[in-house]
C-alpha cells in the first residue's frame, strides 16, 4: 500500500494506483477528457487536462498516468492549475465544431460538460475545424472525425480490448486523425460493429445511427401493426437515463412506456432466449451425446462475435451453433406463429427490437436467413440510448410509471432467459436445460456460479450424471484468441478437447456492457447491471427455459420439437468466411 496526501487528505491505495484514481477515492474529481474510468482502457495522457502539482516537483504531472508514490503531497486544484486546465479546454474548443445543438451527444458530452463547468463564454482562439467527412458506411456505427479530440479511447478499445483493429490513428501532429484501418470506409474495414468505440467516446465523434425516426414512422402508420421486444440487458440499464440506481430492474415500467408509445404488442427477448436455449441445448446434446457434429460447440447470440469469427477465425465456422440470436428468433416467430395465431397479415407487422447493442442493427440484414418469415424478420433496431430518448420525446414520466405486464404469447420468460444479458448467462441457461434433457431430472441447484463474474476467460467443468462437460466463457473479443488456440492446439496434437462448449460475447461483461447502453460503463456498472439480471432470475418461479409454459406451448402448437425441420428453417442460420478487409 502507498500512503500520500491529496489536497491535505490522507489517502492509502494499492501500489500502481494513479493519482487520478487515488483522488477519486478521496472524493476529489480531477477533470480529464482522455482517460475513461473504465479499467479496460489505458491512460493515453493525450488531453493534458488532469495536470496536478506535486510539492517538490517543478513540473506539473498528469494524474491519469502518474502512479501515486509514497509520501507524495499533491495539490489537484489551485487557481493556476484551474487556469491552465481552462486554457487546454479552450484549445480543444478551437478545433471543435460548434454543433452541439444537433450533435448526437448534446447534453451528454464530456467536452460540453467541461466547457460548461469552466464557464467559457467566448472563444479566445481562432477556430480551425478540419474538414474530414462523416463515415456512415456501416449503417450502425457512425464516425464523425471532425468532432474527434484524439483522446485515443476508441483506438485503444478497438485494438486492445476487442482485437479488431478497425480503428487507428493516421498521420501525426495537428493532422493526427482517427480513421478506419488503412483509411478505407468503416464498412470495408474489419469493424464488427460492437460499438465499444461509441460507448467510450467522450464527444459525438462516434455514435450509433439513430433509427428512432424509423420507429416513430412505423408507429404513426395506422396500417402497420407494431410489435416490440426488449433484450435482457436493456431492463437493467435504461433506468440510468431516468435517475434510477445502477442495475435497477425497470422491466415492467418499460412495458408500460412501450404500450403508451403505441406498440400493439409488447414482447420480451427473454422469451426468445428461452427458445434459443431449447435449440442450442438440443444442438449441444446432438453433438456431445450423439456425436453428430463437431465439438466444441460455440454460442452465436452475439452478432459482433459472429462477424469477428467470419472474418478472423474461418476454421471455427463448423463449431458455431446454427441457432439464431434470440431477437432474430423473436422476429421470425412474430411474423409466423403470432401472425397465424392472431390472423394478422405479416406484411403489416413491424418488429422493433430494443437492444443494448449497435451490431444488432447490422444483424437484421446480415443474410437471407434473417428473412425466414418471407419478410425481413426484424424491421428496426433501437439501442437502449435511443429508447431513452424516445421515451422523453413521448412525454412519458418514466420514473413514476405504473408497472404493467407484457403480452402473451411471446412475452413471459424464465430466469434462464433473463441472464442472457451477462457474460456466462447463455452458458448457464444452456446447462440448466441440457442437464434436464440428458438426465430427465430436475437440477437440484440451478445456479452455476463458476461461469459468472467478470474474469476475462472462465474455464470450468460440469458433471452431468458422471460425464464431465468442460466449458469456457470468454467476453471482450481479445480474450477469444486464447480459448480458440487451446482448441486448435488440442486438435493438432490429437489430445482430448479442452472444452466441449464455449460461450463468447464480444463486449466486456456481455450485453450489460454493450455498445448501445448508457454511457460511462465501468466494471462497477457491469457488475451492478449483471446483479440486476441475476436478481430477476431468482425472482422467477420458472428458472429453466424448457419449463417455460409458453415455450412448451410454442413447440406443441407450432414448431414440433427442437431441431425439427420447421425449427431449422425458421430458427437456424448459416455462416460464411468473410475477408478481413473488403478492399
Amino acid at each position, binding site marked *: 500500500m502507498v500512503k500520500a496526501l491529496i489536497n491535505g487528505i490522507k489517502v492509502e491505495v494499492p501500489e500502481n494506483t494513479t493519482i487520478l484514481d487515488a483522488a477519486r477515492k478521496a472524493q476529489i474529481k480531477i477533470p480529464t477528457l482522455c482517460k475513461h474510468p473504465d479499467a479496460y482502457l489505458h491512460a493515453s495522457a493525450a488531453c493534458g487536462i488532469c495536470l496536478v502539482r506535486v510539492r517538490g516537483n517543478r513540473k506539473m504531472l498528469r494524474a491519469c498516468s502518474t502512479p501515486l508514490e509514497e509520501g507524495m503531497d499533491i495539490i489537484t486544484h489551485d487557481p493556476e492549475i484551474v487556469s491552465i486546465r481552462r486554457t487546454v479546454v479552450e484549445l480543444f474548443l478551437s478545433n471543435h465544431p460548434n454543433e452541439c445543438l444537433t450533435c448526437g451527444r448534446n447534453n451528454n458530452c464530456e467536452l460540453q460538460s467541461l466547457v460548461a463547468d469552466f464557464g467559457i463564454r467566448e472563444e479566445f482562439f481562432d477556430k480551425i475545424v478540419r474538414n474530414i467527412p462523416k463515415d456512415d458506411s456501416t449503417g450502425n456505427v457512425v464516425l464523425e472525425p471532425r468532432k474527434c479530440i484524439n483522446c485515443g479511447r476508441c483506438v485503444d478499445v478497438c485494438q486492445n480490448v476487442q482485437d479488431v483493429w478497425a480503428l487507428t490513428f*493516421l498521420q501525426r501532429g495537428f493532422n493526427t486523425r482517427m480513421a478506419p484501418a488503412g483509411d478505407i470506409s468503416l464498412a470495408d474495414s474489419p469493424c464488427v460493429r460492437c460499438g465499444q468505440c461509441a460507448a467510450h467516446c467522450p464527444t459525438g465523434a462516434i455514435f450509433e445511427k439513430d433509427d428512432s425516426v424509423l420507429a416513430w414512422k412505423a408507429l404513426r402508420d395506422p396500417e402497420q401493426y407494431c410489435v416490440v421486444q426488449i433484450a435482457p440487458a436493456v431492463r437493467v440499464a435504461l433506468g440510468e437515463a431516468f435517475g434510477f440506481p445502477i442495475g435497477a430492474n425497470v422491466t415492467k415500467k418499460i412495458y408500460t412506456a412501450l404500450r403508451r408509445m403505441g406498440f400493439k404488442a409488447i414482447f420480451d427477448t427473454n422469451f426468445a432466449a428461452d427458445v434459443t436455449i431449447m435449440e442450442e441445448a438440443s444442438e449441444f446434446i446432438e453433438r456431445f451425446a450423439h456425436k453428430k457434429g463437431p465439438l466444441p460447440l460455440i454460442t452465436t447470440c452475439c452478432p459482433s462475435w459472429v462477424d469477428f469469427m467470419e472474418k478472423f477465425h474461418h476454421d471455427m465456422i463448423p463449431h458455431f451453433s446454427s441457432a439464431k440470436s434470440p431477437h432474430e428468433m423473436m422476429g421470425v416467430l412474430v411474423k409466423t406463429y403470432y401472425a397465424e395465431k392472431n390472423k394478422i397479415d405479416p406484411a403489416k407487422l413491424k418488429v422493433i427490437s430494443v437492444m443494448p447493442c449497435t451490431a444488432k442493427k447490422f444483424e437484421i440484414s446480415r443474410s437471407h436467413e434473417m428473412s425466414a418469415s418471407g419478410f425481413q424478420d426484424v424491421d428496426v433496431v433501437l439501442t437502449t440510448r435511443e429508447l431513452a430518448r424516445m421515451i422523453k420525446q413521448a412525454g412519458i414520466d418514466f420514473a413514476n410509471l405504473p408497472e404493467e405486464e407484457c403480452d402473451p404469447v411471446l412475452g413471459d420468460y424464465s430466469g434462464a432467459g433473463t441472464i442472457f444479458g451477462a457474460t456466462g448467462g447463455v452458458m448457464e441457461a444452456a446447462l440448466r436445460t441440457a442437464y434436464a434433457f440428458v438426465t430427465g431430472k430436475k437440477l437440484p441447484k440451478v445456479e452455476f456460479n463458476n461461469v459468472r463474474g467478470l474474469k476475462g476467460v472462465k474455464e470450468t467443468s460440469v458433471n452431468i450424471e458422471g460425464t464431465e462437460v468442460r466449458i469456457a466463457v470468454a467476453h471482450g473479443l481479445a480474450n477469444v484468441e486464447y480459448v480458440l488456440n487451446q482448441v486448435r492446439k488440442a486438435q493438432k496434437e490429437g489430445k482430448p478437447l479442452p472444452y466441449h462448449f464455449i460461450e463468447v460475447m464480444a463486449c466486456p461483461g456481455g450485453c450489460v456492457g454493450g455498445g448501445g447502453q448508457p454511457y460511462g460503463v465501468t466494471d462497477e456498472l457491469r457488475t451492478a447491471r449483471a446483479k440486476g439480471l441475476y436478481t430477476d432470475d431468482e425472482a422467477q418461479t420458472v428458472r429453466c427455459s424448457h419449463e417455460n409454459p409458453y415455450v412448451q406451448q410454442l413447440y406443441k402448437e407450432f414448431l414440433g420439437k427442437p431441431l425439427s425441420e420447421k425449427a431449422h428453417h425458421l430458427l437456424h442460420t448459416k455462416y460464411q468466411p468473410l475477408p478481413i478487409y473488403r478492399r
Partner: protein
Amino acid sequence: MDKELLEREVKEIADSWKGKEGNLIMVLHQIQNRYGYVPREVSLILSEILDVPLARIYEVITFYHFFRLTPPGKHTISVCMGTACYLKGGAEILGELEHLLCVKPGETTKDGQFHLEMVRCLGCCGLAPVLKIGEKVYGGVKKKDLGDIIAHYSEETETQVTA
C-alpha cells in the same frame, strides 16, 4: 502487375526481415525503394505475411513523411520554405504552383507528371527563393517564370511521347 508475381516479390522482401524486431519499417523502406511508393495491394499482402494489422501498417506509413501511398509524379517539384526562401516569397511561389498545377503540396497532378512538395532549406539560401525540379535547382525564381518552367517539362514529355 500480375498478383501472383507481386505476392512473390513482396514475400521475398518480407522474408528477408522475418522475425527481426522492428521489421515493419525496414520492409516498408524496401517496398518503397522497389515500387516508388507503398501500393495498397502490397500493404494487404504484408498484413497477411507479417501478421500485422493493416491499421498498424498505415499508422507507420502515414506517420513518417518519407512513405508515400500514391505513385510519385514523373517530376518532383520541391519548393523551399526555409527561412530565407520563405522571407523572399517562397509561400507565394508555392501558391502559384498550386494554382497552375491544381494540386496541394503532397499531391500529384492527375496526369502523373508533377508531384508538388514543400521542403525545408535546400542549402543554397543565397539563391532564395529556390525550387528544385528533379535534380535541377532554380534560384531567384519569380512568380511569372513558373509557367515557362513547367511548360518546359511538360513539352519535354510531349516530345518524348511523339518520338
